């Protein structure tokens, strides 16, 4: 494996037929990135803010953190620390759901479009029958193409 690998390639499955620049510009890929950013960027800002808010309070306001919360012995600091655990579990679970339902199907669409554009640029690379090729309008790289919105996936885990 190592012997045949070209030094600049990262994967064993190189896909030399794919035009990566076009794939990156395809609306499918842009849509994936847009949707993913719309979740990951605010979520990252939120968890960093919540965590560093807690740390800064712990550093600069120890007395406030030591105040009683609801009942004697339970401090504001400990309640905020517990909220970090709940936040981590909650945000993680939310991301997982979002990824399964939104990001994965979009990623598969983007991959599909890139592969297909590559296959059309080099006919014969994938052995496709004539009616497969003519049965469908050749999608321009970028043109949204009707297709299964939830393609089959290999089961991951």
């Amino acid at each position, binding site marked *: *494996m*190592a*012997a045949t*690998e070209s*030094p*600049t390639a*990262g*994967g*064993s*499955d*190189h*896909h030399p037929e*794919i035009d*990566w*620049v076009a*794939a*990156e510009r395809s609306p499918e*890929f842009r849509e*994936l990135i847009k949707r*993913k950013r719309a979740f*990951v960027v605010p979520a*990252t800002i939120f968890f960093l803010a919540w965590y*560093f808010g*807690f*740390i800064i309070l*712990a*550093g600069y306001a120890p*007395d406030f*953190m*030591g105040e009683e919360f609801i*009942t*004697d*012995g339970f*401090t504001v*600091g*400990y309640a905020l*620390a*517990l909220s*970090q*655990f709940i*936040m*981590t579990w909650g945000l*993680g*679970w939310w991301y*997982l759901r979002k*990824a*399964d339902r939104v990001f994965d199907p979009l*990623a*598969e669409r*983007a*991959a*599909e479009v890139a*592969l297909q554009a590559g296959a059309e640029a080099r006919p014969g690379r*994938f052995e496709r029958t004539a009616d497969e090729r003519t049965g469908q309008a050749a999608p321009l790289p970028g043109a949204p193409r009707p*297709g*299964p919105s939830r393609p*089959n996936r*290999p089961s*991951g*885990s």
Partner: protein
Amino acid sequence: MTFFAADVNELALGIFALVVAITLGITYWASKRVATATDFWAAGRGLTGVQNGFAIAGDYMSAASFLGIAGLIFLFGFDGFLYSVGFLVAFLTVLFLLGERMRNSGKYTIADVLSFRMKQRPARAAAALGTLAVAGFYLIAQMVGAGVLINALVGIGFELAVIITGAFMIIYIVAGGMLATSWVQIIKAILLMTATVVLTLFVLGEVGWNPVDLFREARAESPEGASYLQPGLFLSSPIDTVSLGIALVLGTAGLPHILMRFFTVPDAKAARSSVMWAVALIGAFYVMTTALGFGARAILGEGATEAVGTGGNLAAPLLAEEVGGGAGTVGGDLFLAIIAAVAFATILAVVAGLVISASGAVAHDVWSNIVRQGHDSEKEEVWVAKIAAFAIGAIAIAIAVIGGEGLNVSFMVGLAFAVAASAIFPALLLALTWRRFNTTGAVTGVLIGTFTSIALVIISPTVWPGPDAEGGLFSWYDLANPGIVSVPLGFIGCWLGTMLSREEVAARSFDELYVRSETGLGAETGTGLTLTGRRGAPRTAATAATTTIPHP
């Protein structure tokens, strides 16, 4: 050199032997199944999300977490729990920013991802340097800690304890590679979680099943009174607290032995679900450190301060002995012995993970790709990996034995996190997200991040002139944790190096890395080796394409 202290705990030794026998059996089984480089470093990419989640938990929760945090809480109250929070929240950084992308674009090591669109030799050398720095500091800290703990818990001499730990670590990896390492980590995670749950239930039972009473009784047992339940007893400098927080929350996302685990699953979906399993387990564990630490304070009381040792490392084992029935009773002895054995398994799993990541840096990055430039055979790569693992293990044993138990290791884990956060995390994140980023930027970023971390830790007041000295080496610098300075410097290094150089290839092939890392196109496939040892038909590129892409 005394190998055996007078009071060897035979019961603990017996349980140790049982744990070791099980792990050696697994290693023998794994050794029959590890043939290719993918088997050796990535367990054939056949782990499920659940298995990898347990393995991440086993890889991550070191004896420093189990014994160290319980001890810190016992001694300093709330401040100890700050570590628990940081260690968990860090996984959101991994989940959102790196986990899946690593799986999609890497092969065996973090250098695969960093060097994807860069000049191979300098970029790999930089990544290997960062990996070896983090793994090296962490490994030596763990080895010395192992020697001290096993000495205290079982009564075996320090040197022998270090040599035994190192020997098992080497056997697991040389014989069984990542497959054996993964199973050792999974078993350790199960043992650690079970022991912690049982201990927590015993502690809660002692305080009448009201968790808040735990805090009230702990406060009553502390001479600090109400201050015990608020921050400031251990981390007295606010800016240092923030600096520690930065290193914890970003450093985890730069730990090579944790990131390497994402190469052991078949796809990004499994990588993602393994992070969530790890988050569930690690979170549950760190919540329970409350019961271990505050419980030790409430139940053992101020009188135990001498017995728990300087870092408080023996607080959890002594707590187990106490709730089991007390010293000298059957229950107390048994519980203490079990906790000691769990601590030993904990150390073994972590050091094995560290050595395999370091062997990847030496064999895959330095030997195969820098020295041989990809012209070696896969067989050679695996052989070099085994030799590297053996050598790294032997060097770590030698340093730990020569340095001895007096070696100040408390700063070394902090140093490992600082290098991970300041050198590895910025370079990896920018390689995956910033189009303009290039080889020069990656190399300057890693070098600046690594060396400022090391330099700042060396001149920090606790290291030089020493913990007991008044003030630091320099009057203007008194931080114990370098993160708040070194992480921004690491990012600035990446940016500056990039801006001062021009490299067309890196920007052009960014599109390829970007599309690959986000969609999983062309991601490395497994060898069909599953964790249960069945080897299915190897997935070729063509079958991988047909399973991912439905034909219209």
